[in-house]
């Protein structure tokens, strides 16, 4: 299923910006809110996982049903998971399409990578202390 992902601040995300490696930040920023009908269509329940894919990259997210979300869209709090789906094109304005990532989503049982692991996938070395 194709959805357009919007991102933005939430209180939980915002409360933990100085704790990017905490379980609270991890859980909040890797959780996508979807319309319940869309979730039924993909065949998942609250708290189950989806794989979101843009171009040839994909990322695993936890799904939460939220009937304030319009069908065909999703809300993902801003953070490394949301931005993993965003390309570097800024249309020559300096600003990427943070609020307009179009992704294919499907149900998955894969696990969600932590922030450190995600950064490792991008070429970094996880710091764990």
């Amino acid at each position: 299923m194709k959805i357009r992902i919007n991102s933005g601040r939430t209180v939980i995300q915002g409360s933990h910006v100085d704790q990017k490696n905490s379980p609270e930040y991890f859980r909040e920023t890797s959780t996508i809110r979807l319309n319940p009908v869309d979730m039924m269509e993909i065949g998942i329940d609250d708290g189950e996982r989806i794989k979101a894919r843009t171009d040839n990259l994909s990322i695993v997210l936890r799904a939460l049903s939220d009937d304030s979300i319009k069908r065909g869209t999703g809300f993902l709090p801003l953070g490394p998971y949301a931005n993993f789906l965003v390309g570097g094109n800024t249309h020559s304005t300096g600003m990427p399409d943070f609020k307009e990532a179009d992704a294919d989503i499907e149900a998955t049982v894969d696990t969600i990578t932590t922030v450190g692991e995600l950064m490792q996938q991008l070429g970094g070395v996880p710091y764990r202390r």
Partner: protein
Amino acid sequence: MFHIEDKVRHIVCPYCGCLCDDILVELTDGRISGVENACTLGAHKFLDDADNRLKGPIMRKGDQWVDISYEEAIAYAVQTLSEADRPLLYGWSGCVTETQAIGAHLAELIGGVVDSTTSVCHGPSILAIQEVGHPGCTLGQVKNRADTIIYWGSNPIEAHPRHLSRYTNYADAYFLHNAFRERKVIVFDVRKTATSEIASEFVQLEQGGDYHVLSALRAIVRGREDVVPDMVAGVPKSQLIRVAEMCKKAKFGALFFGVGVTMTGGKYKNIRNAIEFVDELNRHTKWTISPMRGHSNVYGSNEVFTWITGYPYAVDYARGIAFYNPGETTAVDILARKEADAALIMASDPGAHFPRTCCEHLAKIPTILFDPYPSATTHLCTVQIPCAVNGIDAAGTAYRMDGIPIRTRKFLETGYPTDTSLMHEIYEQIRERKEHV
């Protein structure tokens, strides 16, 4: 056990662009034990601070992290930055202006690009202002006068939680008898939010439809509703006419917009259209428009860079004179095009907030991160240097989202060096090095 308790007042919250300056902090044994007046976001900033700090500088060696001294970290930064062909100095929004000023001069010294988090936040707003100007005001002006407030693509209840109570809906007003009852709040958003729940009028538009709705509103205010179709980006024309009337009837209206408008298709054109909508309304009554700036001192970076370099952000000193062209000289573009061969990241977290291609490039080049806390960028950088936190164990100037400069207060002694002193040290060492070459 004996506790030393203390209360410090009039503390300035270093979290968001509201820069609330009425915070009361309780200290017990030199640690923050309580916070009053702050919102959830600000309270977390203060209360969790001590547990979150990185203890000292760290360096990536192969796939290991090792502790290093401040001297070693500075020496690494000096060598890396002075040898680079296209260094990028990014971040700055959590720093005080005193540090930002050194950053602008440092960029010039090393022929680098200096950019702030503005470019992925309200950079498009600045581009729009550069096309049509900015009819704005201080937040107290809104508080005392506004009877109509618009939040557009902005959800202050979650992003700027005290904005409504200090400056708009719930604030005391000089010119309104019962401010809370007399004020109308209109919310434009693509989704229902906590803020849209308290609005007297909620306009839900299709994602990416901001420009169309604003054009239609301008035409309606100009008396050309005849050309506007029955539905614009999911909004019925009747609602647009009603809203336009509310706006014209206001004695003082204030439109606040968030990154919901700067980040979607059209980017700065959306903001430009919003500004021109407000311009048009000023022919009927009084209206102002203001961006909801995110970081505590992101506006300070724009101010300082402007008086030093001439431009608010994205300044390229490769040729020794300032050049500015967002889309070309902005951090995301420079990283996505793999131009930068070294980066200094100042109190910001591109690892969490940049597109993946940019993060990949940061991981490949020498990246020096100044941040009090381990962040997503920690895993990508080469060296991280923790410094004191502006507003907790460091003081200096910060500019509120409406341009009001406020001096943050230092109320704790922690022993961490300030970013001002570290940047000064780096600047001086590079300057000496250049003089000897």
